[in-house]
């Protein structure tokens, strides 16, 4: 298939935008309508977008291909009413059982860069699709990209069954329950890489509402030897938590290096 250079550039941009925490400054996020719920079988609706400012729909919708929701018994729950618009995707989740739900968009893929006839080319795919890269390509570099975006919601009393890490890539293990966060209190979380403590890792914490203030109010923290970091919430609201790791331990030998990222949207309640 032939494609104009402009169209190819547009597609490349769209692909970059669909991936959170790429080299671009965009931020990817899930925004639940509520995180602490009462009553029987309540619903939440969740927005999923990629934007500059948190949490505004102003750039690109997030693709929901790898959306998964896990219920209070750890079993997968179907997200409903999925739709993708100009600036955001949206879906609903019914919290049919009491307890905590984990909503995640996680992917594990390969990104490639190579030269063909003197031109640098980019490729995105999986181990199965490596054959798409022309045999005559040179300077081939393949990186594994493990992305995980999450948010949490609880109906009734919080529980932990849905919060167990998968053991792949960068993940958050709550010490403080992610739906029991209150302004002025200290919360503690652990970051794990392939299930092991992600020590000495930078974590970025940004409160939502960027459009209505002049300062970013970004806080950069570091995990300790156990992968733990602690945050004392200065104000109530939604927070964007992000961390990423680059290492040379991809899960496939086809890749030379690995880039793993984790993003969570957490709601901090007023006292």
């Amino acid at each position, binding site marked *: 298939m032939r494609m104009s250079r402009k169209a190819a550039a547009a597609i490349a941009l769209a692909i970059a935008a669909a991936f959170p925490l790429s080299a671009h400054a965009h931020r990817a996020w899930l925004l639940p309508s509520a995180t*602490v719920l*009462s*009553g029987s079988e309540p619903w939440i609706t969740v927005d999923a977008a990629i934007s500059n400012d948190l949490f505004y729909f102003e750039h690109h919708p997030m693709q929901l291909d790898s959306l998964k929701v896990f219920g209070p018994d750890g079993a997968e729950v179907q997200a409903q009413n999925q739709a993708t618009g100009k600036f955001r995707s949206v879906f609903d989740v019914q919290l049919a059982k009491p307890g905590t739900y984990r909503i995640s968009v996680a992917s594990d893929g390969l990104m490639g860069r190579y030269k063909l006839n003197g031109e640098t080319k980019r490729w995105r795919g999986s181990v199965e699709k490596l054959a798409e890269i022309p045999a005559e390509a040179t300077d081939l570099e393949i990186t594994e990209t493990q992305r995980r975006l999450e948010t949490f919601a609880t109906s009734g009393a*919080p529980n932990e069954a849905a919060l167990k890490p998968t053991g792949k890539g960068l993940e958050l293990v709550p010490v403080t329950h992610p739906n029991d966060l*209150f302004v002025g209190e200290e919360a503690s979380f652990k970051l794990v890489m392939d299930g092991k403590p992600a020590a000495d890792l930078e974590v970025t914490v940004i409160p939502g509402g960027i459009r209505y203030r002049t300062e970013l109010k970004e806080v950069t923290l570091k995990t300790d030897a156990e992968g733990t970091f602690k945050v004392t919430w200065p104000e109530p609201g939604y927070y964007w938590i992000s961390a990423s790791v680059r290492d040379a331990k991809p899960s496939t030998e086809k890749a030379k290096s690995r880039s793993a990222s984790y993003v969570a949207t957490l709601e901090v309640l*007023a006292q």
Partner: protein
Amino acid sequence: MRIVLPAALAGLIATPALAADLTVSIQIPEMSVAEYHKPYVAVWIEGADKSITNLAVWYDVKAKDNKGNEWLKDLRQWWRKIGRETTMPADGLSSATRAPGEHTLDFSGSNEPLKNLKPGQYTLVVEAAREVGGRELLKVPFTWPAASAASGSAQGTTELGAVKLELKP
């Protein structure tokens, strides 16, 4: 069993001589707003030892299919400390929302829920949340049981008026 009675009736009940009594009066303010709903109100006791004793929850108990439970989370401190672990409605605890005016709750130390309240420092907490309105939380510290008659109060400014606590030995 806990006893909740209107103020007028409370005086008619004989009290065991040695049991300490606790009376809470809560003023729900009149509001001049376009859309008024009587507030959800929760009343509980927090101990210096972190113990929690639930005294009352006024909410839309009569709503069909427990629809009123949907908004119980808006009593957010109560929800965190008690509500999310409690099945509502709860016998002897939940009752309908109250109209503006003063409402009195009488509790005898010889009955539930005060029967097992250990001597010590406590705080009475009253939290109110109103649909399409605001939320307010008031605290009144006290010592239990009272050696002599004692009282305390807190003054609300938005969703609650005066909250008074009276203790009798």
